[in-house]
């Protein structure tokens, strides 16, 4: 049975990121969703899930999540090497770099990848993103206090259009990090199919026709040269 582990859904639940899990469940009704709460040992600590998902969280809880995961850093590295799929979205990406620099304090992160985060809680960036993943286009939004610095390796999404001249995320084997927020899989049915293929499953998704309508309309809107790249700071 396909096992999808969702890390800390009670904390990592901002921007409707958890709708990604709802959509996975709709696409894979036979899959077992394992919700791991912050006080529990992760399922992946002793077993091998097919997919681990973690979404956006309040910046104030990032330290808690990092310290919860720190004892499992080597295990995560091993799972990456074993091609276990991870999908990490929004500012959950901050957890896996070297450190989070908040000016007056520096929070050591898991150190699995070379980048670090500069975080300014007085400077929020909201903007659109259109990118490329293999042969498909990705649409999404960012809303973040974090800037990713020193990102090396293969980006998850190559930028086609965005307010910051920067690719998004990172992919190492089947470990996928993206700073895009919200229901990424719902908004990108073609990426959902790619994920299913990566998991060795048929590329059959729920509500495909409706999802494609939404995707194609958003892609057309975002690719319009007159579309605003930046949605303003603090949501203005």
């Amino acid at each position, binding site marked *: 049975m396909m096992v999808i582990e969702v890390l800390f859904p009670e904390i990592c639940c901002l921007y409707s990121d958890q*709708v990604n899990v*709802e959509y996975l469940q709709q696409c894979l009704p036979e899959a077992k969703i394992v919700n791991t709460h912050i006080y529990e040992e992760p399922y992946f600590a002793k077993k091998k899930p097919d997919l681990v998902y973690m979404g956006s969280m309040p910046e104030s809880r990032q330290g808690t999540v990092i310290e919860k995961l720190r004892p499992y850093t080597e295990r995560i590295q091993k799972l990456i090497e074993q091609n276990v799929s991870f999908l990490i979205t929004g500012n959950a990406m901050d957890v896996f770099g070297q450190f989070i620099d908040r000016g007056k304090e520096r929070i050591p992160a898991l150190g699995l990848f070379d980048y670090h985060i500069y975080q300014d809680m007085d400077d929020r960036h909201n903007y659109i993103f259109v990118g490329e993943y293999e042969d498909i286009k990705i649409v999404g939004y960012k809303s973040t206090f974090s800037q990713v610095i020193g990102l090396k390796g293969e980006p998850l999404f190559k930028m086609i259009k965005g307010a910051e001249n920067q690719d998004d995320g990172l992919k190492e084997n089947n470990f996928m990090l993206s700073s895009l927020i919200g229901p990424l899989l*719902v908004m990108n049915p073609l990426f959902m199919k790619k994920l299913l293929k990566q998991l060795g499953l048929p590329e059959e998704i729920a*509500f495909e026709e*409706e999802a494609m*309508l*939404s995707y194609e309309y958003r892609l057309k809107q975002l690719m319009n040269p007159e579309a605003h790249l930046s949605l303003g700071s603090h949501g203005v």
Partner: protein
Amino acid sequence: MDYEFLNKPNITQLIIAGDRCYDHQMRALLSGIPREKITTTMKNIDAWKYVRLDNVDKVFVLKNNFADHSSRVVFDEIVKKLQEVA
């Protein structure tokens, strides 16, 4: 945005109107609302055209904060439609 509260057998039709109608349709489907109950239109002002009044006791016009004018038009057109039926 929650759509679960609209997933009830006594709600027979859901018309989603406006620029983001396809996104809301996906949200409604994910909440379990049957596909056949859902109608979408990009023009929010046209929503009234799709209202089916047979075997219906109440029609609700739910709007966002920026749709005062169009929702008023929709409301007035539904009232006209009701008067024609009566």
